[in-house]
């Protein structure tokens, strides 16, 4: 069992097996409270909220609120935190979480300055913690735990791992997979920023050894070389499970930021052609449309049987 599953699900015999506690930083904000409730409705075990200055209060009359992540961890033993604070408060909130010893930090906010992300990645490395995001929809094991903002409908328990830079494309493609009978073992949103706490290649390393994984779907987009690095890694380790990719942004003009801070082609760096050609080199078909992903995956799985 890989580390990410130890953190999110645990092992049979653990007292908190399949009900790992999650702390919500920014639980009293409009966005944080909405998604705290959504996560609870999904079955995620939200054990505490953190809002500096509101320690001692309760969220929805039942979830205790603390001033710091350390207090929340001391009281609950939770190792996972999700962060809904505005971008300008990201650095402080993320430091609070990592220095307290959070093992998995899911950073939702968009528009985080890249220097703040770099600083947090450095701290996470020292502490041996995982950062998902910033600017991510989050991470989930469908039908078990959701640490993020994804709507529940597209996802279903299953054996395909989905890694995605984009949020809505993650929903869209998971939906298409689910309708084609491909449930998901785990879905990880990498985020649309230029620098990610967990890169596609790191996310791949987290999931590649899942024993019962039957396939992998990679949802990339223009900008950077995260996709190329992942394709190279797949070649290097000789990963053989059926894998399909999708790349958004083929028609985007160069040197323009397409919504995501990271979605920009500079010269040939970050171009869709570069990514598609690396995936082709790794013998991974690249879908032209989201709806084509399950079709290609079914084709791959048929061949590998």
């Amino acid at each position, binding site marked *: 069992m890989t580390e990410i599953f130890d953190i999110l699900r645990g092992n049979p015999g653990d007292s908190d097996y399949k009900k790992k506690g999650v702390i919500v930083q920014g639980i009293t904000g409009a*966005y944080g409270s909405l998604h705290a409730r959504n996560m609870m409705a999904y079955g995620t075990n939200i054990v505490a909220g953190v809002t500096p200055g509101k320690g001692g209060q309760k969220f929805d009359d039942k979830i205790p609120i603390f001033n710091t992540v350390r207090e929340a961890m001391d009281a609950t033993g939770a190792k996972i935190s999700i962060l809904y604070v505005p*971008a*300008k408060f990201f650095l402080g909130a993320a430091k609070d979480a990592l220095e307290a010893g959070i093992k998995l930090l899911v950073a939702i906010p968009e*528009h*985080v*300055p*890249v*220097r703040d992300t*770099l*600083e947090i*990645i450095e701290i996470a490395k020292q502490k041996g913690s995982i950062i998902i995001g910033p600017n991510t929809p989050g991470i989930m094991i469908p039908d078990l735990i959701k640490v993020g*903002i*994804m*709507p529940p*409908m*597209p996802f279903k328990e299953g054996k395909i791992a989905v890694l*995605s*830079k*984009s*949020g*809505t*494309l*993650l*929903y*869209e493609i998971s*939906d298409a997979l689910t309708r084609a009978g491909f449930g998901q073992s785990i879905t990880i949103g990498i985020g*649309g920023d*230029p*620098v990610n706490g967990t890169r596609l290649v790191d996310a791949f390393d987290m999931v590649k050894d899942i024993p019962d994984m039957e396939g992998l779907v990679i*949802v990339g*987009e*223009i*900008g*950077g*070389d*995260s996709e190329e*690095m992942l394709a190279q890694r797949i070649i290097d380790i000789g990963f053989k499970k059926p894998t399909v990719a*999708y790349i*958004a*942004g*083929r*028609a*985007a*003009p160069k*040197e*323009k*930021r*397409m*919504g*995501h*801070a*990271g*979605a920009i082609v500079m*010269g*040939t760096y970050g171009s869709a052609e570069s990514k598609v050609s690396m995936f082709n080199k790794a013998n991974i078909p690249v879908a*032209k*449309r*989201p*709806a084509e992903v399950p079709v290609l995956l079914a084709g791959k799985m048929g061949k590998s049987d």
Partner: protein
Amino acid sequence: MQLLEYQAKELFREYGINLLPSISSTTIENGRIHAKELGYPFVIKIQVPVGGRGKAGGIQKCHNDDEFELKYPQVFGLTIKGEKARAILLEKMADIKKELYLSIFLNRSKRCYTIIASAEGGVEIESVKNQIIKEIGMGDVSDEIANEVAKEMGLEGSTAEDFVDTLKKLSKLTIEKEAELVEINPLAIMQDGSLMALDGKFVTDDNSNFRHPEMEKYQEKTEIEEQAEKSGFSIVELDGDIAVVGNGAGLVMSTLDMLSDNGGKPACFLDVGGGATTESVYEALTLISKMKRVKGILVNLYGGIVKTTVVAEAFLKAYEDNLIDLPVFSRLKGTESEKAKEMLQGSRTKIFDSIEDAINAAVMEIKH
């Protein structure tokens, strides 16, 4: 945001990086005054936020009044990679011995700042040979690293000293202004061995704008971009006739790709974000109504965070207020999408079950 050359040079000057005398203007009348101040010969340089200016004729030498009167309007009138001149920079002509390349940039692959330097500058970075590459963490450059780079470039004496000084100033600038890229290309060695930044490129991390009110004066936005930002949208204007609207950057890019694959020409990329409300979508339609070239609107919404009924209400209101009179081809999926479909029945907004169907209908109906 990419600054114009003269703006980058304002920052260089502030940080003590050596520059030739130069003055920017936006009218030929002011240009004439500057020409007198500078004295011939000088170079006329178009100010556009893209590279490739030299090849496009945007940099011209000027030796006398006649040349000035001819070339200033010529250069000002150029459009380079779709970008019109924002200003003209007059800069003294330089007596150059050699051209170097120097930049510090956010290295996305390595997740750190990185120096690229070369003794063979003056060409675009893709063609710069013998690149010296040094990873520098959060961007700080020690004397040791700076000296190492100078040595590897084969610089000696006062030129090497000048280079170390320039590199350290560039590092300070990168850190303090939170740049994604600061480039001096060429960094010229003059006949006397001193160094001069002949060109400057500066790309900001727009997410750090809130910490840099002093950079606000460099912000350049069209009216439409400004309104989009106020509404929390991302917009990229394109030159086709079908406006593409959706929620989430990835989904809108994907829709753009599929539309282009089917022969459609996108007029814009408009991401209304996750937190869309009736008001904000109405604002998006207001923006689109201002783009004269738009003949139809393609909407791709994957509801999740956003309720699709909220979007339907915005469309109904836009028709009611005569804000738009354009056909809308939409695919609304997600929470309450069935109800949204009912609401839009009988309006000019057609709802399709798949984005492929919506695109086909849009391309069929909007002929070029």
